[in-house]
Every structure is written in C-alpha cells, then in structure tokens.
C-alpha cells in the first residue's frame, strides 16, 4: 500500500536553516546538510529546502548546498526559491535534487511550469502555493486567494483555479501551504487541503500548521493529503520523526516503517 509521506521542510537563509512565523522573526536552527542527514537517519520520507531569500534578493539558488545534500542523503528532495528559468531547474536537478518547486515565479510566468514539465517530466515540477482565506466570492469563489513573495503580495487569483491551471500546464505535485496556518502549529487547514486534494488529479502535499502527530492523522484522514510537511515541531526537538510515525501507525495510517 502506498504510504503517506512525512516531509520535513528546511527554510534556508544565509546557508542556515531558519524558522519563522508567517515568514517573520526567523531564528537560526542549524546547518542544512547536518539537519538533512539527521532527518534522513530518523526515517523522513522526503525533504524540501526553500531558499527563502533567493527570490527576494534576485539571486540563483545555492547549488553548493544542493550538491552537499545530494551527497548526504539517499531519499528524494525538492528545492525551491530563486528558480526562474529552465537553466535554474536544470542546475538543481543535475546537482541531485529530485524535484524543483516553483511558487511566486510561476504566478508571474506560468509558462515556466510547461517548459519545465516538457524538459524534465511532470514528476520533477512541484507547484508551491500560499493561499489565504478570503471572503471575496467574485474574485475567489473557492474562498482562497493566492499570495506570493512570502505572503507579502496578494494576487487576486483563486487558489483552486490556479491549482487546476498548474496541473494543465504540467505540474506533478502541489504543495498547499496555508498562509493562515503557517507557523501556528495549531493544525493544518483541513478544508483548504481537502478542497485542492479532491479536485486535482496529482498528489497534494499539506503544509502549514503541523504541531503534533494528531494534526497529521487529521490531514491524511479528513483532507486526503498524500503527504504532509512538518517543520517547527521537529526542528525545536519537541518531537521526533520516529515518534510521529509510531503515532500514525497506531492511528492506522499507512506509513513507511523500514529505513
């Protein structure tokens, strides 16, 4: 049986893993390669790295870090932030990443999805989206609006419409990161995740709000997420991946148990 994936997310700022709430007040947590190796040892199923300032600073992603991670772990990982061209994608994938994640830049230039998908295959192209709950049925009938640039900009685009369009353009997976839940550790945004998961044919990764194992049980059972991103709850040492997995197994969620 296909298992549900648990994906630690490492936000990178100046070559260090940081963690903030809603992209603010970031504190340094450690070295990305060391943390990746530790989570790999602990049995995480995949990893995602976001170079959170590359895009704002208009510089390409830190390829050296991608290369080091690729040497340290033997599981798939995705890299996002600062990816604006096919050349950027190619460098990240050739350095050993399994997937590239596009977000703000895909909103500005949706064709990058189609180009990347044609060049490298849909399974390599992940759409990251940061939807915000809004009450604006005219513009956003799904109830969620896409924000970009680390939640700083609102786009007026409907989240579900954008998800469907991105699938048509060729994304292989969608990470739905709730702006409202991000960093709160109060649980995933179930209705949002469910809305996207039930309406696109590609796997959906829930993101934003994970605070304990029950939150993961809820998002897998109620929202049909295929995978879930966790960050603060393990970065701070409050819990560990084996402990989370044990709780999920007890709850009857299919989870990878051999690593």
């Amino acid at each position, binding site marked *: 049986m*296909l298992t549900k994936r648990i994906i630690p997310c490492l936000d990178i700022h100046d070559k260090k893993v940081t963690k903030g709430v809603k992209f603010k007040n970031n504190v340094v947590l450690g070295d990305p390669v060391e943390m990746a190796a530790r989570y790999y040892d602990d049995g995480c199923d995949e990893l995602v790295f976001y170079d959170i300032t590359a895009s704002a600073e208009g510089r390409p992603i830190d390829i050296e870090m991608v290369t080091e991670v690729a040497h340290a772990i033997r599981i798939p990982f995705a890299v996002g932030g600062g990816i604006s061209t096919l050349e950027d994608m190619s460098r990240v994938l050739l350095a050993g990443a399994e997937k590239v994640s596009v977000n703000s830049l895909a909103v500005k230039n949706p064709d990058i999805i189609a180009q990347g998908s044609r060049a490298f*295959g849909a399974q390599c192209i992940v759409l990251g989206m940061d939807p915000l709950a809004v009450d604006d049925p005219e513009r956003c009938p799904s109830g969620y609006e896409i924000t970009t640039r680390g939640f700083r900009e609102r786009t007026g685009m409907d989240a579900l419409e954008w998800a469907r369009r991105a699938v048509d353009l060729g994304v292989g997976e969608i990470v739905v990161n709730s702006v409202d839940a991000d960093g709160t550790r109060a649980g995933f945004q179930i209705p949002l995740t469910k809305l996207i998961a039930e309406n696109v044919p*590609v796997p959906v990764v829930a993101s934003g709000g994970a605070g304990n194992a029950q939150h993961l049980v809820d998002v897998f059972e109620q929202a*049909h997420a295929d995978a879930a991103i966790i960050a603060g709850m393990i970065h701070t040492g409050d819990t560990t991946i084996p402990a989370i997995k044990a709780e999920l197994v007890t709850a009857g969620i299919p989870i990878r148990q051999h690593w």
Partner: protein
Amino acid sequence: MKPLERLTIAKGPPTILFMIAIIDYRAGNLTSVRLACESLGLEAMITSDPNVIRSAERVIFPGVGAAGAAMGHLEELGLVETIRMAVDSGLPFLGICLGTQIILGHSEEDGGVDTIGLINGNVRLFRPGDPLIKVPQIGWNSVAQKRPHPIFEGIEDESEFYFVHSYHPDPTDPACILGETGYAGVTFASVMGRENLVATQFHPEKSGRVGLKLLRNFAKWDPPSPSRLRRASGGRTT
C-alpha cells in the same frame, strides 16, 4: 568514505574498464544513480558508448520519462542491440523504472510502443476508479517478495521503496515475478528477473538504506547464466 569495493573480474577479453556502466539515453537525470553507487564505493560511469557498456562488469539501465521517446533515443544511439548483447552475454543487468518498463515487449504509453522485449509482457497505465487515487503513483510503497533472490538478501519482506510512475509492468510469465506491489486496484510486478537480468519499477537509488542494500546486493550478485559460464571458461559466444 567507505573503502572502494573491488569485485572479482573475469579473465580475458573484453577488458573491464568500469565496474558499473549506467546507460545514458537522454531519459532523465542520472545523478542520483551515480551518487548512490559512489556512496557504496562502487566505480560507476554514466555512458551512452556501446563499447564502454559492453566492457563493463555490470550494467544499470535506469530512466524516467516516456517510453516512445526513450525507444527513439535508444535506437538513435544504437543501444538497443548493445543492451540485448549485454544481457545475452551474461552481464549482471539491473533495470530501474522506465528502464524496467522498456525491457518488456510492449508499452501502452504514447499510443502503443514496441519495446526491447527481454521479458515477454506489457506495460499498462494505472486506471484507478477512485479520483482520490492519484496517477502517477509518487511515494513509498511496499514490495512483497514472491521468490527468494540474491537481490533481496538482508532486506525484510514488505520493505518500502520509492516509486514514481504512471504505468506498471505486466509480464506474461509469472515465473519472472520476484516482487509485487499493490496500487490503484492492481497488484503489479515491482521486481522481475530471469538469469542475469533483474528489474525494479521503484528507484533503489532513492530508497534510503534499503535501496542501497539492494544496489549493493546487485553489485555482489554472481548470477547463473549459461553464456556467462561459457565466457568464464574461455569459450566464445557467437
């Protein structure tokens, strides 16, 4: 770094240049296959040169992408015959993902494509009845070991491996099925093998320590093959 693993090399021509040849036929990114081999201390070379492939001690045939384009590339590069010869000569041969699919005889992909045909059978699209079951299958799924095989040595039954695929192998002869996996309402052959050939639908190079174990098993594997026995005893294959 682990010490370089050296294996016994058969005497006589052809000269062994590289322990493992990873076949490059413009079907996806081979970095992780190379890195996985290197992390095991195995000498591996990514190549599309038939001479290098023929002179390697073992061959990995990976790949992601579509079957039609892949067959086109293999034909352009003159590699279809090289692959047949490598397998016939008894070289230990490992197919991965798309490489595994095009080892079969026919694929439903791209409107139907005839493929290499080293194992009789078809490659079929997942057609889940439930819209919540996504295609491609992406993630870790378990492999039930149907037959003992050196490739599984030290790997627990039902261990999970990393899969990314929309189509799955459907071999004609159940005797070649070494491992099975369930997804989207079908139980499919996730590991197949005969003689010196073994093929996985999943990616051992991305499957953590369990995947590395499988690759290490492949690197140590000394398969029975009539033609290999002939070669090792100095006889000529024609």
